């Protein structure tokens, strides 16, 4: 039996105290003194011990990042002396898309490599916008495999980034009468790319590249970001070039498994020249995710391109639009266009922009992506608080410029491992054992808009748009 793919995790402690969510408030005067049965001793996260230690050193103690808000102490205390408080600093983290819960759970995943614990409490409406209006159909969860999805049962998360022939030709003797394109696979539908902003020193880039090399993934990188240290990971780099400058980077191309060209008119003319530099090279074309993307993708799919990389905004939306659509709608549009053109199986689609949670990856696949590329979340894994001070040239509160590559790579590996485990959970519950089969599998999802139309449309006619959010 082939060895199972695994990402090795180990604790990577935060360098700075993370901004925690909950604080416990305690009315000690009312304590019944039942010390042997005290709920403080039962806390599985040991927050009261930490609490005391922080207090005794006169630090700001109470906003303990390790408290998961299970409310055990609040509920089990015989005298009810505990209550919870939310850190106002926590509420101010990030922005409307990169909300505090995403940031905090990413920190926890990057720290431990485990699936985050969401804890108790009201988490807002059951439905939201964008990816939050899709629910995955977990009906197969009632029939789990006997061997367990993390045990002997093998769920394959590998995806391809190389093109596929739509038909095979055989000779009379049944031997293949054509050359098959080489196969480029990544073990997880997650690729990396450099974020648009942030303190992006060499330490950060090396962390991402080390992680990419360790897990067998790829990182999209521009030639100006190359340095001797970065170049050691050339096999994990997809150089992002243009039709004008690729001839200057022949060495880079020879050492890479895949190259990305920026979209331009008649870009297909460059493929043969690129493949003359390195035979069998996989070629991706990068383009913004805008209103014309679907038509451009259909035209490109007729050519010998392997992958189309579509760049959305960092907030998971269409770019260059006054009313930007959500990533899920854009993925769906491009995917369906290629299906109608009967070329969907030929090429691969990688979407990037605003991929913030493991569920975004799974839902992107359901909508029709082959893989996703992540960027901002990599910074968050390295403790970024998304305070955007770097955009104003102010110092970074967590000193991202000093990230040690070993530590940073481990944080990213932990995060990706947690995402993979979540993908496996979802696929197990779908009853699907191949990540490639999840692509466009909308039958395994429930869409709020459709359900609302189906159930309430006959009663209320055209639905109210203001309802959700």
């Amino acid at each position: 039996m082939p060895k199972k793919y695994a990402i090795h995790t180990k604790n990577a402690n935060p360098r700075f105290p993370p901004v925690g969510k909950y604080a416990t408030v305690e009315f000690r005067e009312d304590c019944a003194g039942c010390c042997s049965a005290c709920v403080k001793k039962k806390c599985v996260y040991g927050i009261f011990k930490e609490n005391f230690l922080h207090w005794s050193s006169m630090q700001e103690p109470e906003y303990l990042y390790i408290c998961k808000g299970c409310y055990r102490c609040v509920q089990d205390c015989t005298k009810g002396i505990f209550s919870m408080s939310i850190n106002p600093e926590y509420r101010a983290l990030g922005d409307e898309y990169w909300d505090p819960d995403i940031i905090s759970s990413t920190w926890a995943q990057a720290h431990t490599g485990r699936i985050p614990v969401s804890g108790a409490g009201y988490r807002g409406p059951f439905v939201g916008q964008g990816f939050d209006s899709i629910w995955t159909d977990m009906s197969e969860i009632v029939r789990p495999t006997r061997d367990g999805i993390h045990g002997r049962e093998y769920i394959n998360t590998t995806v391809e980034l190389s093109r596929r022939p739509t038909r095979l030709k055989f000779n009379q003797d049944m031997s293949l009468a054509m050359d098959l394109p080489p196969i480029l696979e990544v073990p997880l539908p997650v690729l990396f790319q450099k974020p648009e902003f942030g303190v992006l020193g060499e330490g950060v880039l090396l962390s991402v590249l080390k992680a990419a090399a360790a897990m067998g993934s790829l990182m999209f990188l521009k030639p100006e970001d190359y340095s001797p240290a970065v170049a050691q990971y050339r096999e994990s780099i997809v150089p992002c070039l243009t039709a004008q400058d690729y001839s200057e980077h022949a060495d880079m191309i020879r050492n890479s498994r895949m190259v990305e060209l920026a979209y331009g008119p008649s870009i297909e003319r460059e493929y043969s020249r690129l493949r003359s530099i390195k035979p069998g090279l996989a070629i991706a074309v990068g383009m913004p995710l805008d209103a014309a993307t679907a038509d451009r993708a259909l035209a490109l799919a007729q050519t010998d391109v392997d992958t189309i990389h579509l760049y959305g905004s960092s907030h998971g939306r269409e770019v260059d639009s006054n009313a930007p659509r959500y990533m899920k709608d854009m993925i769906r549009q491009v995917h369906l266009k290629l299906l109608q053109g009967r070329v969907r199986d030929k090429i691969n689609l990688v979407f990037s922009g605003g991929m913030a949670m493991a569920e975004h990856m799974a839902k992107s696949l359901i909508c029709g992506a082959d893989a996703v590329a992540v960027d901002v979340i990599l910074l968050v894994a390295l403790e970024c608080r998304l305070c955007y001070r770097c955009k104003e040239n102010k110092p970074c509160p967590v000193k991202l410029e000093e990230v040690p590559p070993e530590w940073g790579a481990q944080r990213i590996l932990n995060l990706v491992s947690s995402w993979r485990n979540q993908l496996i959970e979802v696929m197990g519950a779908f009853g699907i054992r191949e990540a490639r089969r999840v692509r466009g599998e909308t039958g395994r999802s429930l869409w709020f808009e459709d359900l609302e139309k189906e159930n309430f449309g006959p009663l209320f006619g055209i639905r109210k748009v203001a309802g959700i959010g």
Partner: protein
Amino acid sequence: MALSVAKAISAKGKGFKPRITVFHCVSALTDASVLDSSGCDIQVVKMPCGIATREVFLLRALESGADAVVALVCPEGQCRHLQGNIRAAKRVARMKKLVDEIGLDGRRLNLFNISRGDAQAAERAIKQTASDVASLGPNPAA
């Protein structure tokens, strides 16, 4: 105001910069950086509620070298946890007596009720404490 405090400080001993530990409820004082302009050496300990002002930590602050300790809590009736500020006031009152008994002078320990967002009131509280401490001199227990 800042000038009068500075005068008081210089009157007691030249070069004496009072060290004040401030325990504050986050609902009462949202941004502790407003205290920086008081001219004192301020150490801030942020708390989720005034109830977290424990006796032992008030004393530990004095023991660790603070010339004064200030607790800033919400006004009565405005505590998110209903009684946090009232209990904090009782604890501070108890500790004031204790500090008096051991000869450190209870004026080194104060509690002020600050309405949410009233940064000026917080600044006034610190300056008042600083002027009291200026007359008392450095903490002999430090």
